[in-house]
């Protein structure tokens, strides 16, 4: 090829690289609530740093190798008509040994710096706050047993995991059906939830806030819709939240709001209570699937309206926007299959009945 053309190609390559870089940087600036490189805990921070270090080492090797490759292609092209042979080198043992040493040294350094982190990752401190996580198609249940950090009785919630800021939270995880994986990227990596086993994981949040996450192991039709959310509070707010969650709901009075009372009755008539538990109201869950009181077959609806999402956190119940919350929840009652593969079974309800059920559920706050 003639020199001007290869010059143009080099220019093209440079422009393309620059374009990629600019695009990559602009993309990183996006709001990405599951960004693994935007850690919000010391655990995720360590992983992010570890990754970045190894990634930079890999980038250095990448630049050397691809640079040599491009240089070879540009430099050693045969000119048309040149039928002569280059030096017929079969290789050079000394060069090869040096080249062999390269990857060995790099990998040894990587190994030295990284192996310890594996053991750190498995080390869950004894004084951590324990939460039992139950994964099932396609949502998460969280039980808080009574312990040092939690006074009062055990309680269970769903989809939204509340934790105190700055404290290590130990997750004891079990699955009701297939393998799931608990992952809140800004708080730590992921750990599978395997039926028949109990796996342990730990998370922590440095700042109060809401952290997005999702099931990371393919678990069936609705895998994409098995999301989760971790809400971190200051310790005082957390204690307040715990106290609220521990309170049982009261049975609506016959003389109160007739719509609420009708909804309360429908909850039983339509057999919602067959799977959903409401502490203090509907406590006997007749299992349609494997279930125990602490691991209900369907989400425990006690204090439903203290949560900001339902249905594996794919439907939001915005706290400050009652009409939207109502819309979303009623749409869900109309057709739980709007979430593909959802295992919620519900008979056909009239609009009046949906309004009544909503009125009752709205009281669970």
């Amino acid at each position, binding site marked *: 090829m003639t020199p001007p053309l290869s010059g143009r190609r080099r220019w093209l390559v440079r422009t393309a690289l620059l374009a*990629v870089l600019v695009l990559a940087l602009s*993309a990183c600036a996006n*709001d990405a*609530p*599951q960004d*693994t490189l935007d850690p919000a805990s010391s655990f995720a921070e*360590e*992983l*992010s740093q*570890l*990754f970045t270090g*190894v990634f930079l*080492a*890999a980038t250095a*090797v*990448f630049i050397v190798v691809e640079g040599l*490759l491009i240089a070879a292609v540009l430099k*050693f*092209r*045969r000119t048309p008509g040149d039928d002569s042979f*280059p*030096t*017929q*080198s*079969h290789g050079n043992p000394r*060069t*090869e040994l040096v080249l*062999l040493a*390269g*990857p*060995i040294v790099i*990998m040894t350094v*990587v*190994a030295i710096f*990284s*192996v310890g*982190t*594996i053991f750190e990752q*498995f080390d869950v401190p004894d004084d951590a706050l324990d939460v039992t996580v139950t994964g099932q*198609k396609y949502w998460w249940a969280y039980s808080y047993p009574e312990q040092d950090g939690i006074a009062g009785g055990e309680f269970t919630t769903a989809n939204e995991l509340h934790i105190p800021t700055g404290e290590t939270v130990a997750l004891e995880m079990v699955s009701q059906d297939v*393998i799931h994986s608990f*992952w809140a990227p800004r708080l730590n*990596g992921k*750990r*599978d939830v*395997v*039926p*028949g*086993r109990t*796996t342990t994981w730990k998370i922590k949040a440095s700042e109060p806030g809401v952290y997005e996450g*999702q099931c*990371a*192991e*393919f678990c*069936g*039709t609705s*895998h*994409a819709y098995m999301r989760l959310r971790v809400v971190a509070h200051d310790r005082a707010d957390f204690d307040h939240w715990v106290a609220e969650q521990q309170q049982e709901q009261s049975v609506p009075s016959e003389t109160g709001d007739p719509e609420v009372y009708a909804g309360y009755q429908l909850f039983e008539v339509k057999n919602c209570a067959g799977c959903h538990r409401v502490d203090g109201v509907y406590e006997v869950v007749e299992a349609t699937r494997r279930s125990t009181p602490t691991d209900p077959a369907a989400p425990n609806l006690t204090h439903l309206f203290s949560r900001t999402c339902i249905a594996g956190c794919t439907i939001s119940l915005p706290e400050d926007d009652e009409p939207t919350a109502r819309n979303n929840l009623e749409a869900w009652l109309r057709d739980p299959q709007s979430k*593909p*593969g959802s295992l919620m079974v519900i008979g056909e309800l009239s609009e009046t009945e949906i309004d009544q059920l909503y009125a009752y559920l709205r009281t669970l706050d």
Partner: protein
Amino acid sequence: MALTDERPMLELAAGDPVASPPLGVFRRPQAITGWRSWFTSVDHKKIGIMYGASAMAFFAIGGLEALLIRAQLAVPDGEVLSAEAYNQAFTLHGTTMVFLVIIPVLAAFANYFIPIMIGARDVAFPRMNAYSYWAFIFGGLFLYCSVLLGGGPDGGWFAYAPNTSVTWSPGRGMDFWTLGLIMTGIASTVGAVNLIVTCLNMRAPGMTLLRMPVFVWMSLVAQFLLLFALPVITVALFLLMFDRLFGANFFNVDAGADPLLWQHLFWIFGHPEVYILVLPAFGIVSEVIPVFARKPLFGYYAMVLSGIAIGFMGWGVWVHHMFATGVGPVTVAAFSLTTMFIAVPTGVKIFNWLGTLWQGKLTLDAPMLFAIGLVGLFTIGGLSGVTHSVAASDTQQTDTYYIVAHFHYVLFGGSMFGIFAGMYYWWPKIFGRLLSDRIGKVHFWLMFVGANLTFGPMHILGLQGMARRQASYSSGYGWDFWNLVASVGSVVIALSFLTFLYNVWHSRHAVTNDPDPWDGRTLEWAIASPTPVQNFDAEVTVGHLDEWWHRKYEEGADGVLRRRDEITYLTPVRDETPTDLSTIHLPSPSYWPMLSALALPIIGFGLLYTYWLCLVGGLLLVGATYGWGLEPSVDPDAGHGHGHDDAHDPPAGESSPAEADDELAGAPR
């Protein structure tokens, strides 16, 4: 006597009149041309072509599935596919590309070129070779029957238990998947035995193991990996089949099973599988680069040894697929270390390719472009693999798009670029037609740009927390832009494949009879294009690595390389009179391999629908096996003379009388 499938005790006395084989229902096929001959052929070249054509057809199907996936994910809340359809699409895409595209297309090259490159006339067991092909194609078609019969498999190509149990995957899809893969597994196991024996026993005189071309070496290592890995996955598939069809409880947690058993079995197969998919592609590139650089491969021994090292080390890394499952820290640390150090032999290969390019005289024709593309893209896949080997931080990247990017750089940037390098390189030898280099370059650049557009952004998506295997995503996670880019890239890849198909169609008039268009180094370039049915007229005696190159060039007294004045091709080439085939002894066609393979899907349908079909298939299998066993491998009625002895006359040329009794002229050593 070699390990051939001909047993002396079944041979008939020379010169005896011969009746049809005892179980033969129809006359034994004899045609070696015409469309019917393809069904009964035992010629390794025809079988190789059938493997390649079938695999390319599956590549188109697997590619369509990929396009569906990318269409669904192009924008948030995609509505192209339902969640069920999406799960089937990615299950079929993965299964197809691994089992029905890359394995068979590499088997195609191995089938076609191993015998020629080691100077043999055919593989060790020609009828078993035909059986391999038919078992593969029937298995693949059986698997795809699921799509027409109630829905494809939906458990992912990795099929993690217990999500693949009848409870959670009640359709027939996973049953078709399990049984279909058992069939293709039989095909690959038989093929592996065949090619291993071929490499070890059928080499021409002087073709020592360390004179075998690197492609033959890498394929041999891959065949050993197949031989040992396939039984593991076959066991796993049988356990799953028994669970699903007969309630065997191997993976039933309620009955005390541990679902991690499946993962261990699957990945003990699955990781060597990665090297099965990529080592032969490395081999192809190791053939192409020296030819187009006009110098020998840099560090042949290092290349061979690193391939063998990868073959061994590949067995000790499988748990890196399971870093997030909660297996203990010591286990994780051990497998993290083995995974890091498998990068060493892989790095050796990259450096040796660079060493071969360095100071060469590079001709950037299409095969070379694809080979260089492999070096460039596989490097990215290898390096992202290193970032995965750091187990602690891998808990962030595993099961995200980061790993989807990683293994597509390995399998698309590695295997598929190597495969297309091989296509362009060997096409004239296989078909006697040249693929257009100009269109080939368009194909390369489209594929190169498409691959980077599609798989490059997936690194970013993964780091931004996008999990894989999710049927849709919402706006607001920062994933919209790069998903769109990836989807656009997938269309570019599709265009590149269409360009390739156009090139194939376009090549129909580009007939060439040039036996050696690239100035090749290995024996396949010493014979006519397309390869004549007998491969070589006479036994080849090999004296060098890169034998053909040494037969063409010599070093003059002044130390300058020059082409010899007289170069003797090993068959008549160009317009020379073709060899009289009646003097040459070739394995005879047979319909038994196809019939015995046909029994497999019949038994499969029987297991799923009515056991009576199993009886039919079983009888066919037993009958075909007996027919096969009682049929002499060489038809005494075949056209080349009557007496058996005629067929064993030593071919004129270099062959010694001692070899004349061997079934094939490419005699064993």
